[in-house]
């Protein structure tokens, strides 16, 4: 009974919640600066570490900067970095995945060899190492996380290319004398779209999480620019005096991730009814 009540419409609940949260994140990222009551970098030392008040709706941080404004600005940072990283990983991953899956032979072996070496590092660790090389900056995070998540895209794309290139209609197209490039563009790539969309949604969540973790470690978005991760990191010493500085950014990350995960589940149910 409860299953009927919650289970089936649960699918729709996933989608609604996911779209709402993701939509809110995008709106906040785009219009954040107009919503924010203050400049996120403006100091107000008398209000330092103060809790929610009419002056600062969500309180102020260790320099008296307005938390609400910083959270809004942080949403913009996180969304932008995650978006750019997903695009970066998707483009590079798709290029290598298609090359490996379609050309096969030594190209495939070479790409997969490097890919497997990348996959032998636990996710965040590779990004950490790359951050050490590139240095902490926004562009650095995009490249480091992009490279860290690229191997998964390569795998997924290669697998779908491999399965599609054996289908009859690809064979037929080849028999008709179409070049490999045309076959790839017309038949193979469009069929990889569904798995790529599913992966991209999931990856968006992973990257927001990884970016906030890197920033929390002090190896991500460099201060004073606010990101949810580095807000937690700088607030950590004040955990006893100003718990709102810890609670709020974490709540933002968690709700965002919950929304994206639910959206991811909904997208998967929608595109891949097997699961």
């Amino acid at each position, binding site marked *: 009974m*409860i*299953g*009927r009540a*919650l*289970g*089936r419409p*649960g699918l729709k609940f996933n989608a609604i919640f996911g779209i709402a949260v993701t939509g809110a994140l995008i709106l906040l990222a785009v219009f954040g600066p107009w919503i924010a009551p203050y400049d996120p970098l403006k100091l107000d030392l008398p209000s330092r570490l103060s809790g929610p008040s009419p002056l600062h709706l969500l309180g102020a941080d260790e320099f008296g900067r307005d938390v609400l404004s910083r959270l809004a600005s942080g949403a913009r940072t996180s969304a932008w970095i995650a978006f750019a990283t997903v695009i970066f990983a998707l483009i590079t991953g798709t290029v290598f995945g298609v090359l490996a899956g379609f050309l096969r032979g030594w190209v495939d072996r070479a790409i997969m*060899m*490097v890919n*497997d*070496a*990348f996959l*032998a*590092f*636990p*996710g*965040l*660790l590779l990004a*950490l*190492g*790359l*951050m*050490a*090389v590139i*240095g902490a900056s926004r562009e650095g995070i995009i490249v480091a996380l992009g490279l860290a998540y690229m191997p998964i895209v390569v795998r997924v794309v290669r697998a779908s290319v491999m399965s599609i290139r054996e289908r009859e209609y690809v064979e037929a197209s080849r028999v008709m004398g179409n070049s490999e490039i045309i076959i790839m563009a017309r038949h193979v790539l469009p069929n990889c779209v569904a798995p790529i969309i599913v992966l991209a949604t999931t990856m968006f*969540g992973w990257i927001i*999480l990884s970016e*906030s*973790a890197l920033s*929390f*470690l*002090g*190896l991500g978005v460099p201060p004073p620019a606010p990101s949810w991760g580095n807000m*937690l990191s700088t607030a*950590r010493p004040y*955990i*006893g005096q100003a*718990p709102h500085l*810890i*609670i709020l*950014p*974490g709540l933002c*990350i*968690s*709700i965002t*991730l*919950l929304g*994206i*995960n*639910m959206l991811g*589940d909904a997208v998967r149910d929608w595109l891949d009814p097997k*699961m």
Partner: protein
Amino acid sequence: MVRFVLTRLASAIPTLILVSVAVFVMMRFVPGDPATLMLGDLAQPGQVDAMRHQMGLDQPVVVQYLIWAGNVLSGDFGRSIGSGQEVLPLILDRFAVSSTIVFLAVLVASAIAVPAGMLAAWKQDSLRDVTVVATSTILLSIPSFWLGLMLMLIFGLYLGWLPVVGYVPFSRDFAQASLYVILPVVTLVLVESGPIARMARASTIEVARLEYITHARAKGLSKSAVMWRHAFKNAFAPTLTLIGLVLGSLLSSIVVIETVFTIPGLGRLLVDAIYARDYPVIQGSMLFVAFIYVVVNLLVDLVYPLLDPRVAA
């Protein structure tokens, strides 16, 4: 069986070689000259050249790699630029701390999440199932470092039940050590239970759809007997593979958790080395963690046939 083990062992070797190449190449891209870094800003040009020669930096890159790889194989990971300590003993020392916490977390998380996922699958869409799925989705969405900070806030600061930060080795004072690891371990358990429960549920549902389950029911077995004797046993092997993957994500999470709770583990060592640009330590710890990850996945592959007789044949 012996052949299976040997082929699987052999297949890990190229991966490890590639991992070492990747780590080596990555460190070659670190901005700045390692010899200058080692000597500090006040070094004379002559000293730098001598240092470069001593470190083998004037050799061709391939030769440098081979020398380094040879040293690594003989257990010589170089010395830390910052402290001058040998890197490998330092890593092993710190790893003892991290592995204790990771091991406890995997153990507890699997003990809770695997049965939870399987029980949820038992009756799909029941209240129990919806609860497990919702809880695991929520847990999946909470970043480990925030969860750690929140637990610290509640159990350490408000309730005052547990120590907030630090670490005491189990060998020194077992009772104290246990108190200090509770919060980090609980944090990791909560974070990793989400994916484990989801995987256990999915593989059980998959198995429950199969024909031999209908056959078992046609014999007159009760639903619980069918689940225990037929479904869980078959769903366990795929879940085990996931625990290998979870260990990978734990090796990432531990870096963050050690920072939250100020635990002197391998993750903290790596992060500090990155701040200090102590590249022999960075190189060594990255290589070490990747090695552990490859070995664990190897072990999972080797244990798999014991649970699934088909693979062993």
